[in-house]
């Protein structure tokens, strides 16, 4: 975050900043070139050919070749912009394997950040330098947008749907965090700070003031809401056993497959009738209103942490797949 009262260029603090700025610079050069070209021509012609001046106004033949030239020139330029922008966007959309995952929940009007160690923060995000970060984000209410100008990244945060954002902080410092999607009265207060720290400093910081790890919170909620009444570990309950389910493809009632990912787990808790596994009845109550998105994230963390148990496959037959 700049202390200056006036600036013309934003801080550059992520691995994308230079890439985006170079492309932006190219666009500026094109814009300045054509703006000056058009301005000089229209003003120049209007002065040179003003009425009453004795100048040659004899017209040549109108040729379509001129039209082709001034359509082709812009075409080539915009295709360069398109390809350059698409390649960079591909990079922005493809996180590497070794990311540090942090969870973000947006709600009117604050950002709740959950580190994997259990440390939580509100309207602040602490990050280690040089470490690729992946944010998994969801909103409790309306659409928000997670925006760090110094990193040149932005991603809408949606109700009921996970989105993700990745970047690599490259400069120690404090930067703005904004909500970019209008979300109601205090939209302009839904701001915070992003602090990039040295990795060892971050390692110390993230272990301080921890109250409850998400995995532990998840286990607590799982017990508290008596999920194991139906989801018994030996698969004898009314619902499927959950250990080792994450990442697997499971058949759905009425056909089709679903990958048991974060989104699937989240929907199963808060909107359980959206997708019913083959072989089960739509009998699970919704926990919408009782559990928040943060709670469901904790439960997902707990479920993911469960040891792999062999799941008996007897409850799902090929007959269920093709009703």
């Amino acid at each position, binding site marked *: 975050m*700049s202390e200056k*009262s*006036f*600036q*013309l260029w*934003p801080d550059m603090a992520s691995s994308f900043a230079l890439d*985006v700025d170079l*492309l*932006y610079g190219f*666009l500026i050069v*094109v*814009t300045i070139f*054509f*703006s000056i070209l*058009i*301005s000089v021509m*229209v*003003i120049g012609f*209007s002065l040179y*050919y*003003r*009425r*009453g001046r004795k100048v040659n*106004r004899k*017209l040549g033949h109108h040729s379509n070749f*001129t*039209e082709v030239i001034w359509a082709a*020139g*812009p075409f080539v330029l*915009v295709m360069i*912009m398109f390809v350059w*922008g*698409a390649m960079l*966007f591909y990079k*922005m*959309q493809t996180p590497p394997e070794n990311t540090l995952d942090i969870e973000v929940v947006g709600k*009117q009007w604050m950002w709740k950040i959950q580190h994997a160690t259990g440390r939580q923060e509100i309207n602040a995000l602490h990050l280690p330098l040089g470490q690729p970060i992946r944010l998994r984000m969801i909103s409790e*209410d*309306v*659409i928000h*947008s997670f925006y760090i*100008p*110094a990193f*040149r*990244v*932005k991603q809408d945060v*949606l*109700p*009921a*749907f996970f*989105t993700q954002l990745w970047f690599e902080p490259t400069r120690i410092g404090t930067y703005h965090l904004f*909500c970019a*999607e*209008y979300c*109601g*009265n205090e*939209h*302009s*207060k839904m701001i915070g700070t992003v602090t990039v720290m040295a990795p060892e400093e971050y390692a110390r910081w993230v272990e301080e003031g921890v109250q409850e790890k998400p995995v532990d919170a998840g286990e607590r909620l799982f017990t508290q809401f008596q999920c194991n009444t139906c989801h018994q570990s030996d698969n004898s309950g009314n619902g499927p056993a959950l250990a080792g389910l994450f990442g697997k493809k499971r058949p759905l009632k009425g056909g089709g497959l679903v990958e048991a990912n974060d989104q699937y787990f989240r929907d199963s808790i808060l*909107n359980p009738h959206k997708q019913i596994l083959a072989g089960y009845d739509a009998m699970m109550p919704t926990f919408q209103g009782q559990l928040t998105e943060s709670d469901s994230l904790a439960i997902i963390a707990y479920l993911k942490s469960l040891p792999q148990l062999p799941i008996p496959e007897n409850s799902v037959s090929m007959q269920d797949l093709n009703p």
Partner: protein
Amino acid sequence: MKKNYLTNGQTVASWLLTGDHKRIAMLYLVSVTLFFLVGGVAALMFRLELLTPKGDMFIPEQYNRLFTLHGVMMVFFFLIPAVPAVLGNFLIPIMIGARDLAFPKLNLASWYIYVIAGICAIIALIQGGVDTGWTFYTPYSSTYSNTAVTAAVLAAFIAGFSSILTALNFIVTVHTMRAPGLTWFRLPLFVWAHYATSLIIILGTPVLAITLLLLGLERVCGVGIFDPRLGGDPILFQHLFWFYSHPAVYIMVLPAMGVISEMVACAAQKKVFGYEFVAFSSLAIAVLGFLVWGHHMFVTGQSMYAGFVFSFISMLVAIPSAIKVFNWTATIYKGSIVWNTVTMYVLGFLGLFTIGGLTGLFLATIAVDVHLHDTYFVVAHFHYIMVGGSVMGYLGGIHFWWPKMTGRMFPEFFGKLSALLVFVGFNLTFFPQFVLGYLGMPRRYHAYPDEFQMLNVLSTAGATVLGLGYALPLFYLIWSLKYGKKASNNPWHAYGLEWETSSPPPTFNFDVMPVVTRPAYDYDTEAAEQLAKVEDKAIDAIRREHEETAL
């Protein structure tokens, strides 16, 4: 004295029950001006708030209502109807040599529908305003906002029918009522632009109507369509909304492009360069405009590949736009230009539209849009198109055809002054916003970090100049109605059927049905020069006479 359309019936009923397209245009002129004033005052108020980083003039509730009011008024009640309903209504029948539009009663009905929509908007205002932004994004608008969203959405819904009727009228009129000899490729480009616009209106507006209806259903009846809590999809709204509202941008700017084509030919006293290319580029923009809505949604989490496709098609829009700008520029080349109000508005439009178009490329470039989306850069860009392009074209057109519409000339000095003030004020208002956007200032922020203040102060200073530039024509144009010099039939030596009838035209436009034998823009640049010489000689002669009498 022979009656013209203004003097033919003086009662209030003769205006409110008229079928005359010119009178209906005047009714629209008055009503869009009123809505423009409401929207403009709202803008000035929140620009004042933004002078300081802290939110100290209004509370957030008021600020959010002000920018929503500004957006709703300007988009649905000014920009969309302005050029087509005022200038298009007045000129299209005259330009094609017809007595009126094909369906005069439908034309009047469209004005009444517009007024009803306007009343709905005012009711929304009285109910305490709306705070969703003109984009009505769900689920904020459908479930969370406590403001008069339903009335505002109803207003936009009704206003849509008014545009549909006008567009339908234009399409039928252009197809069926052209004067003998007026082939498609002899039509003024103004008519081509309105034809393209009408196609977009007819194809796009029903989608908006459906979208707003669904929003109303969810808000009023609780039917889950967009709110995930009710089982809906919040992004679906954005797809539906932008499927109309991106083409709506072209609804706002294409007619203004048509105005500029007329004005540039007259200003240069020369045939528009590459007539067919300008005409077809309007149609190309109309078609491409329907295929680019996803560029508003690059960061919503839509598929990356969808993003690529929308980025690619958005880039293509640059080509017909560039063709237009280059052809207008080439029209000025070897022309015979007088530096009057008309010319100044043309030059202002070309400069601002060029910058607006080029900065659109930043937002079509997907990786750069990630940073710029929902910042002031976007605000600056679309104001360069909407205000720099559409409003400049509209105001220019009002000046250009004012003598025809009212039979009076406006004071040339004030005309030039207003064009200059608008140009300078506009750039001062919106140029700093490009910088603010790249620095990362999000739009719709009531309070902002200190380091953005300097640029915001510049922007507000510009807004006051711009406000002055817009207020000025209001005064001198009204003044000219009574005190302006009487206009001849063709004060600008322009070419086109509208300049062959009297100023103001009679109720049925022409005393004899015109027959067209020449191509569009059959200007004679050399003749304009000869005329200038004759005029110069005449002026010299008068001066000499004065000197002699003085001696």
